[in-house]
């Protein structure tokens, strides 16, 4: 009887992982800037989410909830574990995240984006990754980080301003020098 229940639980968890592991892992990589830390964080996040799956209310959206777990785990890692280690240089971080077998131009672009992302303050980095990579709405991001939608909006605005001023992205984004009135409706 117990074995059947375990099998059902395993199937459900496997479905979760199929649905969300890749994006969660890449999100964690972009937030943390390190593959090993991201892999640990995502594994821990899924285990925690699985353990406390009862806290997901009936009818609640799964996606923001899962991202919330991932973001919280990344936050915990950055607060509690990573500051106590010797931080590697930015180049090593990028090398650990990005593969070397991609076309050179693509590698350079990705390296620039990740570099600019890592220079953002953590709260801004999280909302940028959730908005422009994970494709969450502002309301879903607010749910994921436990803040108001207005806070998310202002953080996104500030992050875009800082990214536009980042030297690595000036050469990558042809629209980066446009004025706000041109970019924003």
């Amino acid at each position, binding site marked *: 009887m117990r074995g059947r229940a*375990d099998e059902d639980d395993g199937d459900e968890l496997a479905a979760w992982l199929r649905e969300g*592991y890749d994006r969660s892992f890449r999100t964690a990589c*972009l937030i943390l800037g390190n593959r090993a830390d991201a892999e640990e964080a995502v*594994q821990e996040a899924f285990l925690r989410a699985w353990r406390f799956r009862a*806290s997901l209310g009936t009818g609640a959206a799964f996606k923001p909830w899962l991202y919330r777990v991932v973001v919280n785990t990344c936050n915990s890692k950055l607060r509690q574990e990573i500051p106590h280690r010797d931080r590697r240089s930015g180049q090593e971080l990028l090398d650990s995240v990005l593969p070397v077998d991609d076309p050179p131009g693509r590698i350079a*672009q990705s390296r620039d*984006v990740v570099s600019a992302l890592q220079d953002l303050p953590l709260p801004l980095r999280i909302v940028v990754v959730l908005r422009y990579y994970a494709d969450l709405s502002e309301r879903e991001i607010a749910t994921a980080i436990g803040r108001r939608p207005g806070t998310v909006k202002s953080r996104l605005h500030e992050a875009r*301003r800082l990214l*536009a001023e980042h030297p690595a992205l000036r050469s990558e984004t042809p629209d980066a020098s446009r*004025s706000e009135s041109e970019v924003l409706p």
Partner: protein
Amino acid sequence: MTMVDEQALAGLLQQAAESIAIPDGAEERIVSKALSVEADRAMKVTPSDVAVIPRSRLAAVVPRGARARALSVAAAVIVVAGGIALSAVALKGSPGGTSSSALSATAAHAGATYGHSGSEAVPSVPTKSANTERSAADGSTSTKGSAFGPSTGSGLPEGVSQSAKIEATGSVDLTIPDGKLQSVLTTLTAVATADGGFVAGTQAQIGAGSPGSPSSGTIVLQVPEPTFASIVSQVQRVGHPTSVTTSSTDVTGQYVDLQARITALQASRQQYLTIMSQANSIGDVLAVQSQLETLQSQIEQLQGQLNVLNSQTTYGRLTVTLTEAGHHVTPPPIHLQSGIGKAWSAGVGGFVSGVEWLIRISGTVLFVLLALAVLAWGGRWAWRMGRRQMI
């Protein structure tokens, strides 16, 4: 202000993220680890628990936001209700209740100076250490200085037997018709003697030596303590009472103490007498005699105090001050008030009462606001921490 383009940023981020390779076998590792953790947890729980309550237990360990909010609200309600109850108890027990009594006593005094009705009944038999002052004008009564609690219906405090020794005193101010001073004095003497009392002293000023000056007098009545209350009532009916004050003190403890000390001294004296009867020498007899004299002196002194106390508790002392009418030229202002004046007075009184009420509840309100602020802050902090730590 320059802004990075959203679509361009999203494209670059997607491109960078897709360049990140997914680790091999990570999903299987997570599944196996999750199942092993579940198995460990199941080992610690009995099968019946697993069958019935695993999800509810998880929910209990990790309360949802709504549950945490409900708990916070419940805690706030309990704390606020407790605070209000404590404040109410504190208000009830504090001297704040006396302040209104003092105000009414002042009003009673003011009314007693100018007005009269005399239609109110006299308070019942005075209680222990109770000091009752009643205004004859509006009949309001204030009691202060009670050491044994409120008066009981029988006139004696609870727990005190009928042999309680009560020392009662009182004073009554009467306004009497012109030229009736002597006849009233005679009437009061008759009232006192009819119930077994007597007149302890009289003082009268007839005309005070000049025409138009008031005739007044004072008579001190000693009446049996059990009939003290009825005598006070009878005295008020002789004239128009303007002020009635009665006071009673329970001296039972003092009385019993004196009796005990006398009994002990008498026992000692008896022992000395026995010793003296067995003395063989003049020196012994003289020594015992000296002790006996000392004891006898103490016994007589205490016996005297006991007799005085007995007399004071046997008879109540009532001082009646008599003043002939016609000499209180100041009319009571309250009788001259028109309807508007009364309304104005009522309005002022209402305003003062409102201010008093505001001051009285300000402490409670402040406490409630502080409690709510602390709870709101704590609840918000706990809620946010719970949301952060829960998953």
